[in-house]
C-alpha cells in the first residue's frame, strides 16, 4: 500500500515536472527562434555576407566558448547518468565552473570585438552578434543560478536524491543547461562559421 501511494506521487512529480519543462523550453525556443528568424531575413536579403565592408570575426574565442560549453554539457550529462551520487561531485563542479568559464569567454569576446573596431552600432551584422550573445549569456547566467540551486539540493540531501520530486528538479536544471548548449551551437554556426 505504502509503495503504491509512493509510486503515484512519483508518477505525479515526473509528469508535472516534464510537462512544465516542455512548456518552458518551448517558450525559450520561441524567443531564440525569433532571433534566428531575424537573422535569416537579413542573411537571405543581403547581397553578400558579411555585409559589405565587414570582415569576419576571428573564430578563436567563439570556438573556445563552444568547446567549453560542450565540456560543461558533457559533464552535466555524466552527472545525471551517475545518479547524482557523492562520488560524482567532481562532475558537478566541473560542469559548473566550465559554465562560468563560458560566461567569462563571452566577456572576452565582447572585448575583442571592441578592440578590432566592431561596435554595436556598426551595422546589422555586429548588432546581431552582440544582441544574440547578450541574450544567450543572460540565459546562461540564469542557468548558472539554477546550477547553484542544484548544488544546494544535492548538498542538503547528502547527494541522495531518493524521491522523484527532487530527481525531477535536478534533471530539469540539467535539461535547461543542455538546451542552452544547443542554442549556443546554433549561434556559433550561424553567426561565426557560416
Amino acid at each position, binding site marked *: 500500500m505504502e509503495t503504491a501511494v509512493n509510486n503515484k506521487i512519483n508518477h505525479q512529480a515526473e509528469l508535472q515536472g516534464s*510537462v512544465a519543462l516542455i512548456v*518552458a523550453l518551448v517558450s525559450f525556443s520561441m524567443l531564440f527562434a525569433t532571433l534566428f528568424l531575424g537573422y535569416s531575413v537579413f542573411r537571405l536579403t543581403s547581397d553578400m555576407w*558579411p555585409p559589405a565592408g565587414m570582415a569576419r570575426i576571428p573564430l578563436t574565442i567563439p570556438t573556445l566558448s563552444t568547446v567549453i560549453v560542450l565540456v560543461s554539457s558533457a559533464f552535466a550529462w555524466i552527472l545525471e547518468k551517475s545518479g547524482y551520487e557523492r562520488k560524482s561531485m567532481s562532475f558537478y563542479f566541473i560542469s559548473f565552473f566550465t559554465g562560468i568559464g563560458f560566461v567569462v569567454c563571452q566577456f572576452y569576446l565582447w572585448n575583442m570585438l571592441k578592440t578590432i573596431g566592431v561596435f554595436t552600432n556598426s551595422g546589422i551584422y555586429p548588432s546581431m552578434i552582440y544582441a544574440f550573445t547578450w541574450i544567450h549569456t543572460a540565459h546562461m547566467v540564469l542557468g548558472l543560478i539554477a546550477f547553484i540551486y542544484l548544488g544546494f539540493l544535492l548538498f542538503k540531501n547528502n547527494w541522495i536524491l531518493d524521491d522523484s520530486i527532487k530527481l525531477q528538479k535536478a534533471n530539469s536544471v540539467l535539461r535547461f543547461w543542455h538546451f542552452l548548449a544547443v542554442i549556443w551551437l546554433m549561434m556559433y554556426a550561424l553567426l561565426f562559421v557560416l
Partner: protein
Amino acid sequence: MAFFEQNIHHPPKTFLSKYIFSYDHKVIGKQFLWYGIFFLLVGGLMALMIRWALAYPGEPFPVIGQFLFPTSNGVIPPDTYAMLFTMHGTIMIFYAITPILIGAFGNFCIPLMIGARDMVFPLLNMLSFHIAAVSGFILLASLFVPLGAAAGGWTSYPTLSTLIGSPGTGQTLWSLAIFVLGVSSTMGAINYITTIITLRAPGMGYFDMPLTVWGLGLTAVLNAIFLPVLGAGVLLLIFDRVFGTTFFLAGAAATTGTGDPVLFQHVFWIFGHPEVYILILPAWGVVSDLLSFFARKPAFGAKATALSMTTITILSTLVYGHHMFTTQMSPLLTQTFMTLTMTISIPSAIFFANWLGTIWKGSIRFTSPMLFSMGVVFVFGLGGLTGLYLGTVTTDLYLHDTYFVVGHFHYTMAASVLLGSFAAVYFWMPKMFGTMMCEFWAKVHFWITMLGLNGVFMGMLFMGYAGMHRRLYNPFVYDFLNKLVPINEFTTISAIVMGFAQIIFVVNFVHAVFFKKEKASDNPWEVGTLEWTIPSPAPNYNFKEIPVVKCGPHELGNPALTNGRDFQYQTEELARG
C-alpha cells in the same frame, strides 16, 4: 484522470501572507482582478480623452483638463494625444483584459472547475502576479518621465518607436514593461497548462472539462508559444534604443547592412494575431458555458465547440500577414494569407452556430451573466463579420489604418471581451467573495453599456468607411472629413455614457465585496460544475475531498432527473430515463 495526492494548505494567518504574498490561486485571482479593474479605469479615462479631442478639437477637457494639461489651458496637446492612444491600447490589452480574463479568472476558475486544491506551482503563481505588478509600475512610471510616455501606437512600429520617432525614456520603459509582463504571463501559462493536464479530478476527461477551462487552456498554449516572440521583438527594440544596435533602423539598407523596420511588424504580428485569440478564447469559453447554464439545456455540440476553438487556435498562428497587406508583400503571399484568414470563418461559424443552437428553445433565465453572454454573441458576430473586409486584400487596401479597423477590433477585442469579463464577474462573484451583486443594477449596467458601446464602435465603423484615419489629432483640418463632425460627436457622447455606466458597476462591485451583509448560497445559479459543489466563498483548500467526476459540465434540463432539480452535479451519475 489522475488521482494525485494534493496537500491541504494551512489557512494563512497574517495580513501579508493572506492578501499580498498568498500562494492561494483564489487570492492571486482576486489580486489580478483588482489590478485589472484599476487599469480598466485608467485606460477608460484615456479613451474618454481621445474621444473628447476628436469630437471637440481645441476645447479644454472638462473638469480635470486644467489640472492634467496646464500648459495648454486644459486642451489635449497633439503629442499627448499620441501618447494617450498608445497607452490606452497598451493598458486595455495588456493590463486590463489580460489580467482580468486570464489572470483573475484563469487563476480562479481552472483549479475550481477541474476539482483541484490549487495550481501545480503555487509559488510560480504568486511570482507571476508580483512580476505583473512590477510591470504595471514600470508602465505607470513611464507616464511621468521627461518627453512623456510611449507614443508610437500600441503596435509601436519602428520608426515611430525608435529613437528617431520617440526620443526620451517613455518608449524604452514601455518596451521593458511589455517584456516583464510577458515573463509573468509565460509563467502563468506554464502553470495553467501543467495544472490542466495533471490535476483534473479523477474521472474528468478533457471533454468533461467546462468550456471555460478549454478556452483558458488554449489561451495558455498560445501565450506560452507566442509571448516570447514579442519578448524577443521588444528586447531588440530596447537594444536599438539603448545600446545603439540597428535592427529596426533603416539606413541606405542593403549596402551598409543596416536593419529593417518591417521586420518588427513581422515579429509583432506573429505574436499579435494570436494575441487577439489569447484575449478572446477565455471569453468564448465562458460564454459557451453560461449560455448553456442559463438556457437550462446542454451546450449544443460542446465537443464541436471545443474542437473549433482548438482549430482556431492552430489557424491563428498562420494568418498574421493580413495585418501587413500594405507593406508591399508579394501578391502570392497576400493571397495566401487572405485565404488562410478566410478559413478561420469555418470553425468560427461552427461554434457560433453552436451558441445559437444552445439557446434555441431553451428556457432562458435572463440573469445578468446571461445578458452579458448574449451581448457577447451579438457584438462578436458583428466584429467577426467586419473582419472579413479587413482580411480581404482588395477591401483592406482602402480600409487599412482607418477607423474601420479601430471599430472592428474594438468589437471583437474590446466589446466582446469586456462583456465576457463582466459576465464572468457577475457569475463567479458568489464563489469569489461570497456575496451576490445586485441584479437590478447589473441589468441597468448591461443595457447602458450595451447601448453605449454599440454607439461608440458602430460610429467608428462608419467614420472609418468614410475614410477617417485612425491616428489623426484633428481630422477636421481635412475638408473631406468635415462632414464627420456630427458622427464623431455622437460617438463621443456614446463613449461618455458608456464610461459613466461603469460607475454603476464599480459601486455595485465594491458594495458586494465590502459592505453586503447577505451571504450568497452555495449554488445560487443552480448549475452543476465542480466549483458549485463547495461552500461560497470557496474555502482556502477548495475541496475537502477531491471530487470524482461522473458526467459532463452541461447536464441541465435532462427529463430523466427525478430529484426535483433540472440540473445535476458533475459528481453525480448521469441520470438515464
